[in-house]
């Protein structure tokens, strides 16, 4: 409907996470990959610390470690040094160079530098690409999808010489959005393969950030989709993108090699899950597996049980655009009042929403959501939720005050059930605390 913005000069308690962090996250979903952030040390140290804190896993990222004089004289010398070091020491399969806003402001042309570097060194067998992700526009989500798009581009170029593309109609490329947890990606993969499809997920954080027991330290990523699977994914008969932000990479695949694509803007709640399963049922001709019919009934039953709890409740959600859309759809099904929906930046998905959306920060959430019963946002919102007396439900990125948040599932019937119960439990506990304190003060 409308996208609003509260007028104030400064951002107070920012909701927005820099784009470059999204780029680093995307590359964690590729096997033996290494993102190199072209910028000062802090530009890689902060994302690394934050991602480590959220996923509770080591995070692979390096930096060109620029200092003042490097920016002034030749920033690309540092990048070349970084590439040399990384290539000789660790031999990654995939290198993603993420250009920060400083490179934009200083006008550094690292794209051509990378091209000539690749030509001179005769880099073959690996994938090296660059992507510009300045922090003064976009957000985590656009950084993630932008990186996937750049990666897909490079894949297409690398495979380009082989013209004859044999299409494997039983193989689907899944492009999961940045808001999906490793648990979510796993669930969607399972759903698609339950209909007899081969799934190649690009990028696949469900096999890298879900927690594994591989020993032997490596500065590269330890899981995710390998490069040859990514190349093989070009033969898929269909692309499924989850989240509106992933439409661009899907369209890129369509335009370049003709793979048809289907975008699911949300994946949360009854209707979104119905849509996905119905679609898979239609294209495969297979019946919907019995377990999903069970899950569907379980979800509906749990919603029946929980609906007393949600009666008359109001919710405030402050999340990334795609995530907000998804969560808002689920909230619609619960029948709660959506007091305010706040997101980090404007995208076609949020401007196309039927509800009013605000682009702002967590301080706006506090002001607009005053009186709300439930607050859904990243862990940064905890203090604000306490100040307005709302129950706090951590979601999105980053979440550090809850164990296993990175594995919690919100997609599919099971995910919707998990979230419904979690939100309901929080409201029950809040009610109990309130009752107790009102008795005590009487």
């Amino acid at each position: 409907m409308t996208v609003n913005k509260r007028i104030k000069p400064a951002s107070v308690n920012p909701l927005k996470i820099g784009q470059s962090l999204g780029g680093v996250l995307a590359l964690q979903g590729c096997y033996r990959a290494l993102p190199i952030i072209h910028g000062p040390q802090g530009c890689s140290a902060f994302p690394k610390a934050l991602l480590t804190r959220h996923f509770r896993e080591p995070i692979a990222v390096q930096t060109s470690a620029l200092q003042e004089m490097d920016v002034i004289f030749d920033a690309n010398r540092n990048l070349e040094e970084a590439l040399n070091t990384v290539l000789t020491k660790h031999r990654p399969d995939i290198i993603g160079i993420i250009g920060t806003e400083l490179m934009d402001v200083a006008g550094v042309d690292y794209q051509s530098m990378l091209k000539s570097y690749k030509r001179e060194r005769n880099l073959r067998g690996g994938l090296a690409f660059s992507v510009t992700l300045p922090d003064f526009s976009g957000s985590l989500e656009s950084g993630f999808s932008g990186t996937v798009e750049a990666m897909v581009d490079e894949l297409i170029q690398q495979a380009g010489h082989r013209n004859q593309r044999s299409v494997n109609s039983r193989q689907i490329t899944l492009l999961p959005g940045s808001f999906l947890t490793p648990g979510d990606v796993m669930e969607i993969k399972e759903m698609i393969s339950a209909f007899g499809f081969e799934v190649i997920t690009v990028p696949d954080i469900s096999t890298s950030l879900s927690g594994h027991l591989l020993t032997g330290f490596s500065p590269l990523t330890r899981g995710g989709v390998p490069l040859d699977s990514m190349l093989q994914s070009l033969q898929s008969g269909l692309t499924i993108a989850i989240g509106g932000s992933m439409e661009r990479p899907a369209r890129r695949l369509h335009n370049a090699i003709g793979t048809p694509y289907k975008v699911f803007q949300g994946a949360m709640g009854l209707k979104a899950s119905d849509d996905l399963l119905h679609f898979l049922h239609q294209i495969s001709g297979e019946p919907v597996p019995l377990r999903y019919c069970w899950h569907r009934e379980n979800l509906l039953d749990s919603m029946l049980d929980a609906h007393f709890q949600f009666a008359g409740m109001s919710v405030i959600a402050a999340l990334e655009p795609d995530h907000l859309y998804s969560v808002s759809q689920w909230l619609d099904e619960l029948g709660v009042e959506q007091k305010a929906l706040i997101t980090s930046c404007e995208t076609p998905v949020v401007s196309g929403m039927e509800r009013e959306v605000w682009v702002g920060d967590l301080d706006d959430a506090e002001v607009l959501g005053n009186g709300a019963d439930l607050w859904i946002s990243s862990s940064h919102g905890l203090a604000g939720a306490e100040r307005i007396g709302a129950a706090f439900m951590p979601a999105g990125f980053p979440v550090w005050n809850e164990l296993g948040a990175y594995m919690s599932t919100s997609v599919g019937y099971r995910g919707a059930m998990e979230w419904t119960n979690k939100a309901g439990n929080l409201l029950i506990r809040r009610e109990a605390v309130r009752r107790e304190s009102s008795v005590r003060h009487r």
Partner: protein
Amino acid sequence: MEPIRKDELEAKDCGSQAPKSKPCPRPKPGEAAGGCSFDGAQITLLPIMDAAHLVHGPIACAGNSWESRGTLTSGPSLSQYGFATDMSDNDIIFGGEKKLKDSIDYIAGRFAPPAIFVYSTCVTALIGEDMDAVCKEAAGRLGIPVIPVNSPGFVGSKNLGNRLAGEALLQYVIGTGEPEDDTKLGVNLIGEYNIAGEMWDIEKLMNSAGITLMSRITGDARYKEITWAHRAKVNMVVCSRALLGLAKEMESKYNIPYFEGSFYGAKETTYSLRQMAFLMNDREMERRVDRLTEREESRVIQDLRPYRKILKGKRAVLYTGGVKSWSIISALKELGIQVVGVGTNKSTDDDIARIAERVGDDTEFIPEGGASRILKTVRDRKADIMIAGGRNMYVAMKEQIPFIDINQERHRAYAGYEGLLRLAKEMTYSLANPIWKLASSPAPWDKEVPYDR
């Protein structure tokens, strides 16, 4: 213990394998680790709890870092708000000074803080924003101090940022206020950030010894108390290399003697308290400190007994980078733990000399190489536990090595006598946890015992 100031120490005299002289090195592209100067400046200044901290630049510098530090507050929490000018591309093209001015006005009007710290970032430094002028103008107009902190990320390492923040304090804050008349003059603590509440443990100790804590620079500090830091009688630099310059400056400017000390381990704590009393030049206080430290030390020895039994002879690898290396070593030695490897990547020669003083000859120095190098040391030297910063925590978890987090993100306070006890407990629990055995044994179907029919 005779109070001396250890300024010069020859590493080679100790007969250890101390590495050669190493000035502040340029970070190596492709292998660099650790934060930038902006990060460092915030570490030093964010614990000033009632001040507002505004980051002038694109969103990520503030957005990716606010609320990520374990520094605690006993009251005001304005410094836990994340303020950023969130520059867009238009602001960068046309200049962000107007936005900065408006932001300062907005914060001053809405939150009425005693002071606003404004941080520059790489982008604003590069496009030449005149932050100092904007701050000066705003300070004059609003009647509160607005302090520019010129420590953009690309000028150097985290340590440099700490130092630049110290310089900002010296230039704009210290000496601008006077304590109330009946305040007893005492000691400043420099470089103690109240991580996990360590400042409170230290404060309690100082109180029971009758030593007044004047200004906390900056753990759980209020802006006001830092303005009168120049009236203190003694400065103590709490294991922080980067703020040594601040203490030195204060010595030459205000004639305040300083010493370096630490509160990790009973011996170091005792030494620090005694040194305070000694420099205060107060016999009565010295006697009180002696009584207190004797009592506390004997109590802690008593309390530690069960844990020492378990910890004795255990081997640890220590990788904290900074100055903490040497101070933690003393604490570990008191617990009977042998330090078999110690990281020196961010230590200066001075620190290394102090480490060499405290460890045995067979301790390995890890000058660089990051996580893989530490893990190699852990394996080679058969260490039982790894003590490092949070960034390396999950590296250790993957290798199934017991781990203690020692850096600024941690949740346990290890300072003072109580802290030593807590450290001992924490290590015992970590070593005794059943997970190490469970995680290292294979699933039953992977055990290579053929099924016997």
